[in-house]
Every structure is written in C-alpha cells, then in structure tokens.
C-alpha cells in the first residue's frame, strides 16, 4: 500500500493530520455504494476537516473522520495516529470502532492510547510527540470514527488537504471548511479538483465538498500523485510563529520573514575567520575556495537534528555549530554560508522540498512548502549548489534528492524562486568497459564501471563505506551470475562534473558454457535491461522521469579454433522512447561488443504505455541473445 504521505505530510512543522471527523451517519458497510467497493481496500465514509484562523496568532484544525476498512491491506489506515509537538493542544472528542453493521463495538478511551515521544532515529532530540492507538479488528469490514481538534499558538501554513489518504481508497464524502471570521487574507490553491466538487466561498467561510470519488490504483511509471489527486493548500498571508511576525503575500515577503529568522546568526570568532582565510590563501579561484571550505565543512561536522519550537525553522548560530561540530540541514547550511562570508564569498541559504520524485511544489503559492535546506553559491556561468548534511557527497553534487526543482533562495532580506540543475541524457549514465581473458589459471574479467548524474546516487554512499560493506555491495550489484571478486576500487571525481568509477577484477567460473561442441556466452554483463510490468488497461499517462544513456563495451579473446555461428547484433529504435543497439566487431581474434541503451524523459498518453513496454521488451530480448561459437 502506498500512503500518500509525501503529499500530506509536506508540512514539516505542523502536526501532520490526516484524519477526518464524522457526524451522525449510517456506518453500516452494506450502505457503501457498490462502485466505491471495486478496487478499494478502504472507504472514507465521511471526512470533514475544519481549518480555523482564530486570530493573527492562533489557528486550529478539527478533524472528524470515519473510515471503513474493507480488508487487512488497509489496516494501517485504521490506527489512530495524532502527531503533534510540545506546546500544541490536542482535544480528543471521540474515538470509536463500529462493526460491519454500523453498531458501535468499542469506545476508544485515553487508557487505550499511548502518548509518547516521536523522536525518530535521525534526530538526537526534538519536541515531536505522538498519540497512538493500535486497532485490532476481530472481523472485516469495520469502521473507525475519530474526532479531535488541535490548537496552535501561531499562524502558519495549514497541512495539505486531500480527500484521499492512500491508493486503493474510495471516498464517499469529504469536505474542507475554512473559517476565517477575522477576515485575514489567505492564499488558497486548488489542484486536480474533480468536476463534481461543490465549492462555496465567502470571505469568512469557504467549503469544498467531494462525493463518491473512485479509488486510485497504482500504475508503474505514472505522474506524481500531486498531479493526480485533488489537493487544497491553505496558507494565511499573515505569519506569526513564536515571536516572529511576517507576511507571505509573495515569495519576496515570505523570504523576508525567513531572512529575519536567519539574520544575525552568522558571526564567527575572529580566530575561526583567520583560520578560514589561511585555508584559502593559496588559491585565487573562487570555485576552488568554495571547494576547500566545503571539504572543511564535511570533515568537521555531522548531521544531527535537534529542534525545539521555532528551532524547527530557525538555524542555530554559526558560532555554536563551530563549537560543537554538528547540526541539522538548517544549522549546517547557515554555517556554510557563514564560512563563505568569512572569506568574502556571497552564498545563499536555500529552501527546497527534498525527495526522489515524490515531492510537490506549487510555485504560485508563497508559503511554507519545504523540508530541507541547501546552499547556493552564484558563480558566473557555473552556480554551485551544496548539500551540507553529508560528509560524503561529491562537491557540487545534488542527486535525485534535490535536483531539477523550484527552490526559494534567501537573498538581501528577501526571497526569490530559482531552479536547481537538471541532469540530462549525457549526465545520466552507467557505462562499462570490461575485458575477459582466459589463461591457464582460469577466466578473468577486469575493467571499469563508471556512474554519473542521477545514476550515481546510490553508489556514492557505498563508495564511502568500509571495505567489508563495499565488497558486500559489489558482490550484490555486479550483474554476473557467478564470480569471485579479486579486487575493487572506487574512485570519486568532482571535476569538471561529479562522477564515480569502480575498477574491478573478478574471476569467472566460466565465460563460455556448453560441453558438447558449441560454446555459448552472454554479452550483457552489465546494465541488463529490466522491462516495466505489462499493463492490460492503462489509465494514466506514462511518465518517464529522466533521460539516460548507458554504453557498455566488452572485449573477449575468442578461443582458438572457433568461429561464430550466431552474432547477436541488433538495433531497435523508437523515436518516442529511445534506442537500443548491440554492435560487434571481430579483429585479430578479439571480439568487441558495444551495447547502448538510451531512454528519453517524457510524458505520453496512457495508450502509449504498451508501445513503451514493447520497446523495452524487444530491447531486453535482443540484449539477452547469446554469442554462439562453433569449431571451425
């Protein structure tokens, strides 16, 4: 099951609420319309959420929610889970379980719940808490009803509302109400609303209502959920967070408020500044200076999340980080900006919504939509972006975590949107050049596999682990059916662009198989092609998130006295999706095989999914054909 958490929990700082309330209603499972059951594991019976802007420094969220769980796949959605932070008030009005006939079988009481710390493994300490109650059904279907209200002593972006909380979920009734008696200016953004949505808006009271929404069934290679499911985002234009007052009617003003939070927190001691200046005194290149200080940051800090109250958005002072040597993304990015400031290089504290693929960003809604901080160093024609929480990231590398997306740059007491760089087809590759040789001691393969762009993301981590972990990774990830690793070495390159090389030497059990005259060999020792799953009735567009081009070269000395019976050369092209080719040359008894696969980024209508499947399937079959040799 895929819970739409990245959508609904995109608000880093506020309690993440995704339950709704129920009013008097027939909760019998038999009353659910038949078409809402088909393909569903759960049905939202009634979700009524109320966002209230109480005053300029107070807001509340009421959640009245009832959900029928049809089978155990949806059980995780039944558990009561209220996240909050210390200082926020949670009033639980009602929580109960109903059987399939809509008869109440249990009232959930305080004693059934735990209220405990929700400090995760990545945090040393923060003030997040959770109220939790695990539901253990005796029989499916059953219905859970919750009603609670959380009150915040601040005014800030509300969590994203969506009638759905998971795939394979249908919605009988769902609504969002925004109460704003004080008439405080609010930015509201509606996305992907269905035609049957009923909307009524006044200055003081707006209601969005939805009925009978069918379940969304996950499909491979589909657009982001944020482009599919209905979403409403509500952001008051007035911000009051602890003692920091501000305004978010534009990115400039929201940036101004953030600048106030980060301002004056970048001074470093005179001795630290002297030390930094000394470090860069031997170079005049700006890029080189930035690199030296980035390496300094990586070698003497590490990531620890400690955040309390406003500390969720305000960095610790650079001087404090300088003393202890740790902090979270805010602290370390702010520290990096301070380090560069000390040597008179301008750089910017930059907010980003992180994550591989699953992020959302609404560029015309200035408000809190971020969960991570990076640093932007403007250099003419070559802006450098720095991820400051990692000790191992190559200089200037962002990877899939923060690539190609809108970010908010804080500059000169203001803010503006910019894009992080995109990795294109020539950046994204896994290439290999491998030679196979047979001698008296056996069969050996040696060569290089190089990784770059989005395709080096996962490898960077392992390249920085100890020998034991590296060896385990290499053993697991070489696409060779049987071998012994003799040696390996990772090398990371940072200039001109980040890339990574793995040199390997392995002993093969055998390269050729067969003991009856003919010899067979697979030529695809790296980058074997995986085919997307076949879909009979594709509903949503095909989404190929990025382009890549892999090239693999294989050199083999042919055994003496053999000639080829089958050379698996081929070429498959589909202009819409990509190209595959296998090209073979034999010269002086050495066979050289070059295989290339290109796939192009793009969005295609649903009916083209099968064409893409066929392109990949054909390429995969061509790629797995074997070389066959026969005695002369």
């Amino acid at each position, binding site marked *: 099951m895929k819970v739409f958490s990245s959508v609904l929990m995109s608000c880093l700082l506020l309690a993440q609420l995704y339950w709704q309330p129920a009013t008097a209603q027939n909760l019998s499972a038999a009353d659910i319309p038949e078409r809402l059951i088909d393909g569903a594991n759960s049905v939202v019976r009634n979700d009524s959420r109320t966002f209230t802007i109480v005053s300029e420094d107070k807001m509340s969220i009421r959640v009245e929610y009832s959900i029928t769980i049809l089978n155990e796949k949806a059980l995780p959605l039944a558990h009561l889970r209220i996240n909050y932070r210390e200082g926020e008030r949670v009033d639980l009005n009602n929580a109960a379980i109903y059987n399939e006939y809509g008869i109440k079988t249990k009232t959930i009481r305080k004693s059934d719940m735990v209220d405990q710390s929700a400090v995760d493994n990545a*945090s040393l300490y923060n003030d997040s808490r959770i109220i939790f109650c695990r539901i*253990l059904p005796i029989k499916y279907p059953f219905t859970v009803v919750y009603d609670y209200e959380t009150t915040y002593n601040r005014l800030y972006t509300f969590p994203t509302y969506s009638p759905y909380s998971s795939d394979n979920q249908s919605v009988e009734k769902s609504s969002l109400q925004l109460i704003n008696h004080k008439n405080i200016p609010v930015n509201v953004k509606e996305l992907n609303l269905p035609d049957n949505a009923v909307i009524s808006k006044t200055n003081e009271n707006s209601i969005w209502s939805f009925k009978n929404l069918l379940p969304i069934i996950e499909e491979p290679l589909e657009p982001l959920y944020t482009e599919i499911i209905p979403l409403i985002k509500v952001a008051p234009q007035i911000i009051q967070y602890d003692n920091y007052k501000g305004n978010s009617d534009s990115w400039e003003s929201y940036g101004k408020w953030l600048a106030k939070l980060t301002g004056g927190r970048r001074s470093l001691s005179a001795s630290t500044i002297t030390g930094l200046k000394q470090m860069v005194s031997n170079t005049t290149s700006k890029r080189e200076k930035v690199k030296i200080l980035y390496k300094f940051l990586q070698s*003497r800090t590490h990531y620890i999340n400690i955040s309390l109250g406003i500390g969720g958005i305000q960095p610790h002072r650079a001087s404090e980080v300088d003393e*202890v040597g740790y902090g979270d993304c805010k602290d370390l990015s702010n520290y990096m900006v301070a380090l560069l400031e000390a040597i008179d290089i301008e750089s910017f504290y930059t907010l980003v919504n992180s994550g591989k693929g699953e992020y959302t960003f609404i560029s015309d809604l200035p408000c809190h939509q971020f969960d991570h901080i990076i640093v932007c160093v403007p250099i003419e024609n070559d802006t450098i972006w720095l991820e400051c929480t990692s000790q191992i990231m190559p200089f200037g590398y962002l990877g899939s975590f923060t690539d190609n997306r809108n970010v908010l740059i804080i500059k000169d007491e203001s803010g503006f949107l910019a894009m992080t760089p995109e990795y294109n087809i020539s950046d994204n590759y896994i290439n290999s050049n491998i030679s196979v040789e047979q001698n008296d001691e056996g069969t050996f393969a040696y060569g290089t596999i190089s990784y770059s762009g989005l395709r080096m993301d996962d490898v960077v981590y392992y390249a920085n682990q100890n020998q034991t972990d590296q060896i385990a990774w290499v053993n697991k990830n070489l696409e060779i*059916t049987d071998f012994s690793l003799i040696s390996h070495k990772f090398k990371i390159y940072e200039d001109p662009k980040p890339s990574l090389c793995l040199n390997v030497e392995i002993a093969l059990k055998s390269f050729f198989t067969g003991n009856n005259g003919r010899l067979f060999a697979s030529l695809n020792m790296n980058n074997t092609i995986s085919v997307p*799953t076949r879909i009979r009735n594709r509903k949503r567009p095909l989404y190929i998130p990025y382009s890549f081009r892999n090239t693999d070269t294989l050199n083999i000395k042919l055994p003496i006295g053999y000639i080829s019976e089958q050379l698996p050369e081929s070429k498959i092209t589909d202009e819409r999706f990509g190209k595959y080719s296998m090209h073979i040359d034999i010269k002086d008894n050495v066979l050289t095989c070059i295989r290339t696969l290109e796939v192009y980024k793009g969005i295609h209508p649903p009916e083209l999914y099968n064409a893409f499947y066929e392109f990949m399937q054909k390429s995969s079959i061509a790629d797995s054909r*074997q070389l066959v040799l026969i005695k002369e």
Partner: protein
Amino acid sequence: MVKNIFLATVILLPMIAGAQKSSMKYGKIDPAHLAMTHYDADTSAGALVLGDIGEINITYDNIFGFRVEFNRHVRIKVFNSNGFDLANFKIPYYNFRDLTEKITKLKATSYNLEGGKIVETDIARSDIFIEEVSLKEQSQNFSVPNIKKGTVFEVEYHITSDLLWALKNWEFQYTVPAVFSELTVTIPEYFNYKTLMKGYVQPTVSDSKKVGGSIFIKNSDGSGISKMYTALEQKFRFENIPAFNEEPFMNSISNYLSSVEFELASVNFPYSHRDYTTTWEKISSDLLKENDFGVQLKRNCPIKEEAEILRSKYSDPKERMINAYELIRNTMIFNDSYGIYITKTLRKAWDEKKGKAADINLLLVSLLNEIGVEADPVLISTRKNGIIHPAQIMLTKFNYVIAEARIGDETYLLDATDKKLPYNMLPERCLNGEGRRISQTKELNDWVTINGEEQNERVLFCQSKVEPSGNIKGEFNLMESRYFAYERARKIKAENSIDDYATKYEATFPGLMINEIEIENLDDRSQQLVLKYKADYNLSDDSPKDLIYINPSLGNGINSNPFIPEKREFPVDFINPWSSKIINILTLPEGYQVEELPKNALITLLEQLGSFKYTIAATNNQIQLMTQIIIRDPLIVATNYSNIREFYSMIVAKYAEKVVLKKL
C-alpha cells in the same frame, strides 16, 4: 538518502559501566592515539573502540538496601566520517513508580590535535537532552561535541538502579573494531545470577575470584548487627575484536554477537530465601504456580459449549484436535505480542477474542485437555530472539509459547496465531532449535525439538511447444507445499488482483507473457498451492530459423549463484529442508531435429546434505527434461560454506546449458 544515512545506528547503548581501576583514566589521552590515521588490523574502519570498560556492582546501603551500580567508560578513535555516528548516544533508563534508574556523573569529552596541541572540548549540560520515551522509560541523548577526522573522544557515566532481577547486557562487539572491551561484575553471595555468554569471538580473559564486603542489618530500635559477606567478582575481557557484520541467510544476529547476559536465579539473605530459577524442574513447577501461566490451565476451560460440540461431533482424537485447533485459530485475533505470560485470564482472552501468543496457545492447551486430548505448553525463543542453550538455565531467554498435543505415539506442535497456516505448520518465527515443555507430569518436563523435518516442495511441470521461430508456447503447473506455498500466497495476496500478480511474475522471466492464469488453494495451506498458467516465451522475431537455441528449463532453474561472497563467518540457514523439481516436455517444431543436447549430471553436496540431478533425453519429436535440487539439512555450518557455494556454482552452470535444434 542524504538525511537518513547519518544516525542509523547508535551502538554502544544499553550498557552499564563502572568506576574502575583500569588502564584507562578519564582525561589521560595517549598522544599516539590522536596521531593514528588508520587501524592496521582493519584499515577501512571508520572508527576504533580504544577501550570500553564496564563495571557492575551490587552494593548495599542502609537507606536503599541493595542496588545495582553500573559504570561505563568508553573511548573511541574516529578515522573518518563513517565513524562520526558513534559519537551519538541515547542512554535509556527505566523510571516508573518506585523502581528507578538514575544516570549520574555523565561526562563526554573530545580531543583534537590542533597546531600540535591537544584541544579538549567537554559537553555542555545544555547539550544533553532528556527524552520521555514512554511512560516508563526515559533516555539521555547527546552527541559528543567537536568530532572530526582524527578525533579521540570518551564518555563515562554511572547508573544506579533498583532493577535487581536482570542486570543489563554487555556487548563486546561493535560495528567497528575494538582494542578491548571489558566487564567486571561483583555480586554478593546473597544473589545468584545465571550468566549467558554468546558469540563467535572468544574472551581473552574470563575469570572469577572472591572478594569481601559487609552489610549492616538494622533492628527496629536502630541498633543492629554488621555482617560480613563474600562476593563473587567475575571479569570478562575481549581483545582485538573485529567489527561485526551481518550476512544473508542468517538467523538472529543476537546468536552471533559476542555478549554476556545475566538473570537473577535466586536470592538468599541471611534471614530469608527466595529461589528464582536454578533448575529446569524448578522453572516448571514455579511456572505452573504462576497466576498468569499454570494456574490458568488448572481452572475450568472457558470454552465449555464448543468443547461439548467437538466431543460429540468428532470421535477420532486427531480430527478432534484439528478442529479444536481451527476453532481457536479462526476465532482468536493475535495482537502480535510475544512473551510467555498471558495478559489477564484465559476467560477474558476468550471473551475478547484476542490476545498474545501465550493467551491463544494456552487457550488451545486448555481446550485440548477439556476434549480429552493430552496437551501441554512449550516455551520457545523466536528466531529473532536467539537460540536457547539448554545448559543455560534462564527463563528470560524464552519469549513465546506454543502448544503440544499428544495422541498415542504422535506429537503435534501447534500455534494458533496465524490464520493462514494449518495445524501441521508453525509460523517461521518459531522454528528455532529446541523448546521446553512445561507439564504437570514431572517426567514430561523436557526438551522438544521444534524444527520440522518435513520438506518444502516445489514442482514445476511444463508442456511446451517450440515454434520454428524459436518462440515457445506452453502450459505450466507450479505446485508448492508448506512454506514455499505460504510465501507465494503472501505475495499473491499483496497484489490487487491475480492478473497483477501475473504481470509481476512475468517480469522475472525474460520474454515470458502469461495469457491465462489460475490459482488453486490460495488460502488452504493443508493443500498444495497450484499456479496454472498458459504462456508464451517471446524470445525472437517470427521468422523461421535454421538453428534454434533453447534453454530447456526455460529460465526456471537457478540462474545466478546466491552465494557470491567467497567467505562466510556464520552458518547458512535455510530453516527447512526443501526440494525443487522441474519437468519440461518440449515438443519440437516439425522439420527440426536435435543437434545438441546437454549431458546428464548428478551433483551431491557433502554426501548427504543435498543433491542436484539433471536428466535430459530426446525422442522423435520431444525432449524431456527433469531436474531436482534437494537440500536435506537446512543448517550448513560456515566451515562447509565453500561446498555450498561450489554446489550452486555447478547448478548455475548446468542450468545455463542449451539445447540446439537444426532444421532438416
């Protein structure tokens, strides 16, 4: 990735260490350690534990009585950023009602060489956070400041504890190598603890000696007598300890990590005596007297009416047992809680229709006895909890209860917690060596072997037809038993539909396209799971070929060696014996004949442990392939690792061989 790779492990947590006369003095750092750039024995290590000294003392004072004093002093050298996380500490402690643990004398300091000078940084009070983990547990969290490449840091703390019944465990092995790790435990004669040493690394020192102490026993008028006692001081020291790494196909790491655990066995004061565990017989008789264990079995069975029906409906005892088992399994909801004691009473569990494994399986024992089937509970330790060592008499090592029924000479081990399993299969978590039967009948209090000997079977039967293009059409029957079937059924049910499963299944075989699929016995694990499908293998374009190369197993064999690493430290554990068979009858296209056929083969693994058989024969227009892998002994010790690796190597090579067909 970036955000989560940092704090994944906080090792070194659950320990206690003491004010210790040792080779390490707080604040006295060896400059050689600061200058170190790597550790010779493991040059890639991110950090090195220079020393970790623990001391546990049971002390007495007139106000508080006996308490546990624990002191820990650890010193670590950091080589690179992979070692930074070791500076993060979360020290949990118990704090509930009148039983408390208290952390005192917490110190943390880092040492860095800067411009030839040693710079010390102490942790500030304000950088230590107290987390209210739960109602009963708190934790002190901090990160040692100023950690960089090359840093040496040390942490020392003291815990005073009222929790006498189980002393904290000490682990002698870390995710990084260690120079030494040492624990000294001093226990007055009044307490008797069972000690359990585990792990593959052996201690360098392990000895014990007697030392003296005294207590003052107060009378009500304030006078009193002083009494001398002797205490046993045990010392464990490990040196040059390698880093600990996990391997695939491995049982719980707790079986292999070097550690020592203690459990209170008896308390024997001058004027009173309380025995806790001492012998297995004693454990049994104590447990039978416990309100939340044995007493429940002596009470009337809460399932009267249903028992009456079972008695009258089934006269055959085995049938009666199976139906009783199914009644409990189908009625009771398992709340995923383990433990050997029941929640409240069996009656309450039955009324609520839910409970822990102990509730459910003791209910089953009670019901079986009620319907005249002899049955007793069996205590076990789940796979994750580690293996039970019969020589170590420690009740706390058990964490789960199953039931055993006896009919004539047959015994049946039963666990009614999983609705997807039949009476003759235990959940995989239970298959972990031996369990201990707890019975009213003295002579029945004995060990029971839990691991089943019945093998998991898989048979793939194919009838396929080769086309002149080299493409193949076929009908397939995949039949699986026991845990093979259980695992596949789980995967099928995780999908939205059987068609979805078919597309996932397809994707694991190049060229496979399933046209029709049917599944039998998806929910009934007393039957074989059958997957029937009609499919095409599209391996080529449609033009007829002069030569056709075919893998006769159609890719259903083992295509890559699961044992790639050359060495292995821990046993390979398949959990159950198993067998996997492929039969393929390939019909040749008209006008083609067999040009080349692989040879038959028989490969054995260490005589009896396993075998692989490959037979292939051609008649006029057909090729018949039969292959079978059998693993008879599921536990293969590390010293035989190279044999199993080689065994798989030969299997992979054999399955890669091709049949060649030639056009006439």
